[in-house]
Structures are given as C-alpha cells and as structure tokens.
C-alpha cells in the first residue's frame, strides 16, 4: 500500500458510576463523537463546562465520508483551536471545474478575494478530522468520552433527562441537565422521542471510493456529466491527504449495491477513468443513497438535536458536516448562558429557529443540485442536457449548471436576536450575517486577523478610523466588560502609532471596506461570530439594549 491510515482503537473504560451503581447528574451529555458532537463538546469545555460524550463505537469514521470542509466550519474550529492541524494536513482548494463529456464547460472560484485567514475549503478524510477533535477535547481535561456506550432510552424529567446506557458491562443510568443529540442521520434518540423526520428520498445510488495513487490532477473539485469513462452518469473527483483520492460515481437506481461494492466491479470503473497504466489501490468503498429531510424543531425540551440527527441533505454542495458544525457553534454559547442563569430558557428556542432557517436553505440548495444531477423525469433530463450543451459557449447557461452549490454560511436575516438597522449600510455585514475576516495588527500579537479577536463572548468593535476614541465610548465599554455576560471590545483604527492595548489596526483598509465602516461606526458581534447589531454612531443605551436582545431578554 502507498499509504494506510491506522484506525485508533479507543479503550473502553467502565465509568465509576456504573461500577458503583450510583446515578450521577451531569450538566451536559453529548451523544455521538462525530464531527458535530465533538465540536459541541470541545466548545463547552473551552467555556469551562464538563461534558460526558457517549459513543457506541470505539474508533473514528471509517472511510473519508464528509471530505470537504468549508471556510465557516473551519472558522468555528479555529475559534476552538483545532483548525490549524486540519488545514496543515488537508488539501486546500477553491476552484471547481465542471466537464460535460470530455470538455470543460464551466469553472468557479469559491474565494476570489484576498485577505482571509481561513481558506475557502479543505479536503480531509473524516477520520483525521475526528482524531484531531477527540485529541483536543481530551486535552481540556473536561471531556469524558465513553466509548462502547449505546443510549438505550431517554426520559425527560422535571429539570433533567434520565439516560439509560448500555456498555460491555451492562446497563446503567445517568442524569443530564441537557442532552445534545449528535447521533447522526439514523438518530436513535430522534426515534425514541417519536419525532417526524420527513422530506424527499432520491432514487439514485452513488459509489464512493477512496483510492490511493500518485496522480497529477490539481487540487480542485472536478465534476463530470456524462464523461467518456462513465457514460450517461456523473463522476466527482477530490484530492485528499496522503495521496488518497476520493471518487464518486453515479450508478442510477437499478443496481445491486452489494454487487457494486465488490473490487471486481469497482476496479474496471476506476481503470476506465484513470487509464490502464495508473497504479492505484482501493482503501475504502461504499454505496450510498441520499435523502433531503429535517426535524420540524431542533429542540425537544432538554434535548437538542444538532447535525445529521436534525437535518439530512444530499452530498452535493458539502452541506452536511458544514451545516452541523454551525449548529454546535450556534447552540453552545446559548446553552452556557442559560446554564449560568444569565439568559432565559427561551434563548434555546432561537437555536432551533436560526438553525431551522439554515437547514431550509441547505435543503433547498441540495435538493436543486440533486434534481439537476439526478433528473426525475425525461423532460427534466432534456432541459439538463440542453443547459450542458449550451454551457461551453453561452455564458447564461453556465449559471444554470448545478453540480452542487457549495456550502456557504447562513445569514440569520429573520432572527429575533438581531437588532434591526436604523442607519444605512452597504455590503454583506447585515445583522445576522457571519462576520467576515480582515487583516489587523494588535499591540500584543502583531500581524493577525479580525476573526481571531471575535467570538467566545460578545465583542463590540468601535471603528475610529483616523480619529481618537471619545472618552464616553471607552467608559461605557468598560462598564459592559464588568457585566456578567462575557463581553470585550476593540477599537479599530488606522493609526498604528498611537494604537492602544485593545486596538486593531486596519492595516490595509479591508475592515472599513468589508464592514462599510466610517469613524463612529459600532458593530456588536455574538459569541458565534455573527453580527447582532450596528450603528453609525455610538449610543451606550442602544448597545446595552442590543446585547440584551441578543441573549433573548
């Protein structure tokens, strides 16, 4: 083998409460140690909350699975301190090419502008990603991951959830103030609660193969409609770490999935694509079907659903893990404020409101891509083929070609946590939008990034430009910093020479440009790095009101 990942086997350890037969109460139990569950656990631990994670397995993801991780998910992991390893190990990319037959019809760039810390996308086998998250969660000393622990039942009680867990030593019970169900598309917790998970099932199958080979394809997403090596179907190619390539072949509905997984069926398909002389080895093969569906509400009392347990999308557009991670990002700060008694319980309802809105957007995009890739009627196929045949020469048709609209973060336009604009602003940084990055310099750390200064608590940004900061601004901000809700502030300035300790120097004017900032402009940014409010002039009472509104008061 050119390369082989050796799967860790995490030791099962009997918990003390099972050994002693006592029912212990925990603040938070996360079910599922996948990317979403581990993100939630790590975020809670970073906020000082001890977490128990229950997982029925004892290793990481088998095969590359999710593969593509988008900028916003990486920004969440960067806030938690884990993204660097992922980016260093992964393959950074931003260009996608679409082919029809053997000619290229279309090309896109997912991050055409410069000056962002985090790339548009990386490709990385899911097993590495999970390994890094598990590793970092353990280092916090606050995350107790219990392997070989299957949830048998959950029961909502007054003020807690009683969870029955089965391990190799039998069954025991534990109590949790809150349960975060990250137990995947087949979520058993969802089934235990009898919640509807409805939507669309697509009649198509895809073969996924992780192939180890030395190849000279570039680090780009290549998608073929009707390629010469796989007629009448589509194929997708992604470069991953360690010379592993991910190839997805569309198979159609009328095939036998067990048969298609056999090497004697897979290898000829790969040879047709890669050429008879290319040496490769198969690392992992799977056949999948897909569905687009979601829960009506991501909250059921003290049980909160995040990731695939709450919403399932087709894989085109990389909107699965990339929308699950922002679920955790959205949930954890709210849960912490509610646990600390600083925000009302109803703040958790906004988790569902905001993330259901995101799920709707992801489902719409993923359904449309699927309808284009897997046309459901003859006429739909005719239109699809007409678009493709026009696309090489006629630009309008290129904008109709849909090989997957790749994951972008959701702006919570209708969230009741937003303070609506009173002043006119240009650009994308509307209340509810995920904050965008800009290069900044600080007195302590020198050259850095705006995103490094945002998140975890609330952050206010006061844009001074080349003017001084009025004393009343500094006084009011200092007052808010003494409050119980985590809050810090920064001056954004053009004046490097007399920048104060908390100042961010807008080194090349990107902040002013991307935030449409003029001297006196104020932004309030939430702990999940989404914009909560903004004004053209500082007003302490308005800032205070916006902060209260953003925590559901």
């Amino acid at each position, binding site marked *: 083998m050119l390369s082989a990942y050796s799967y860790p086997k995490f030791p099962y350890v009997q918990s003390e409460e099972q050994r002693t037969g006592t029912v212990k109460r925990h603040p938070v139990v996360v079910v599922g140690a996948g990317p979403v569950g581990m993100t939630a656990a790590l975020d809670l631990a970073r906020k000082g909350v001890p977490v128990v994670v229950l997982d029925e397995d004892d290793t990481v993801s088998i095969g590359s699975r999710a593969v593509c991780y988008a900028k916003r998910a990486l920004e969440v992991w960067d806030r938690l301190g884990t993204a660097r390893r992922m980016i260093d190990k992964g393959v950074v990319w931003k260009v996608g090419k679409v082919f029809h037959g053997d000619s290229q019809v279309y090309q896109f760039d997912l991050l055409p502008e410069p000056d962002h810390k985090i790339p548009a996308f990386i490709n990385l086998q899911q097993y590495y990603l999970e390994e890094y998250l598990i590793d970092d969660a353990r280092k916090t000393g606050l995350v107790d991951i219990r392997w070989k622990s299957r949830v048998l039942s959950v029961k909502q009680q007054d003020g807690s959830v009683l969870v029955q867990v089965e391990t190799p030593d039998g069954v025991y019970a534990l109590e949790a103030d809150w349960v975060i169900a990250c137990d995947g598309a087949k979520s058993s917790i969802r089934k235990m609660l009898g919640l509807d998970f409805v939507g669309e099932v697509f009649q198509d199958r895809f073969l996924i193969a992780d192939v180890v080979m030395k190849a000279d394809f570039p680090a780009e997403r290549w998608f073929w409609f009707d390629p010469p090596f796989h007629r009448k179907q589509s194929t997708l190619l992604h470069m991953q770490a360690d010379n592993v390539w991910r190839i997805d072949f569309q198979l159609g509905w009328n095939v036998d999935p067990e048969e298609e997984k056999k090497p004697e069926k897979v290898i000829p398909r790969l040879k047709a694509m890669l050429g008879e002389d290319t040496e490769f080895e198969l690392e992992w093969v799977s056949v999948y079907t897909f569905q687009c569906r979601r829960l009506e509400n991501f909250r059921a009392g003290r049980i909160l659903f995040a990731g695939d347990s709450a919403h399932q999308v087709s894989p085109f557009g990389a909107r699965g893990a990339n929308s699950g991670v922002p679920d955790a990002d959205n949930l954890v700060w709210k849960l912490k404020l509610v646990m600390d008694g600083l925000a009302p319980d109803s703040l958790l309802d906004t988790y569902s409101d905001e993330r259901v809105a995101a799920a709707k957007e992801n489902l719409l995009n993923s359904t449309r891509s699927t309808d*284009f890739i897997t046309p459901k009627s*003859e*006429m739909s196929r005719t239109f699809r083929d007409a678009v493709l045949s026009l696309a090489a020469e*006629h630009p*309008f048709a290129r904008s*109709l070609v*849909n090989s997957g609209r790749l994951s972008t973060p959701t702006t919570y336009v209708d969230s009741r946590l937003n303070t609506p604009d009173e002043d006119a602003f240009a650009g994308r940084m509307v209340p509810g939008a995920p904050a965008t990055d800009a290069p900044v310099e600080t007195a302590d750390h020198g050259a850095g990034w705006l995103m490094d200064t945002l998140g975890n608590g609330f952050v206010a940004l006061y844009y001074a430009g080349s003017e001084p900061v009025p004393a009343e601004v500094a006084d009011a901000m200092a007052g808010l910093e003494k409050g119980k809700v985590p809050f810090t502030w920064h001056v954004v300035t053009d004046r490097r020479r007399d920048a104060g300790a908390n100042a961010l120097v807008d080194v090349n004017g990107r902040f002013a440009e991307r935030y449409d900032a003029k001297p006196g402009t104020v932004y309030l940014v939430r702990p999940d790095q989404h914009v909560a409010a903004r004004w053209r002039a500082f007003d302490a009472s308005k800032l205070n009101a916006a902060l209260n509104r953003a925590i559901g008061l």
Partner: protein
Amino acid sequence: MSQLVTENRLASPDDFYEALIDTHRDLSAEQSAMVNAKLVLLLANHIGDMDVLKDAMRIARQGV
C-alpha cells in the same frame, strides 16, 4: 438591429430553473412537449425581434 444576449440576465438562475422544472411536474412526454411549444411561442412574441429570434433558433439547432 438587436443582438441575442447570452450573458446571464437572471437574478437567481436556480430559482428560474426550479420553476421551469416544476412547470413540467406530473406531465406526460407529449404534454411536456406541448407546454414547451407554447412557452417558445409566448416568449418569441414577447421578444418580438426577428433577428434575435433567428439567432436563437440557429444556436438551438446546433449540435442536435
């Protein structure tokens, strides 16, 4: 003389495409062909410019 525009003019191409496919939902092949024919006639009348229409008809026939 007007020119056929082949740059994108749709504010949301994905919205249009979805609406187009929905227009054909649950129709037989014959019914769909009739819908398409009516659609072409309606749009041709809306465009109303013979040079543009001839250009579009020429491109549409290419490679078929």
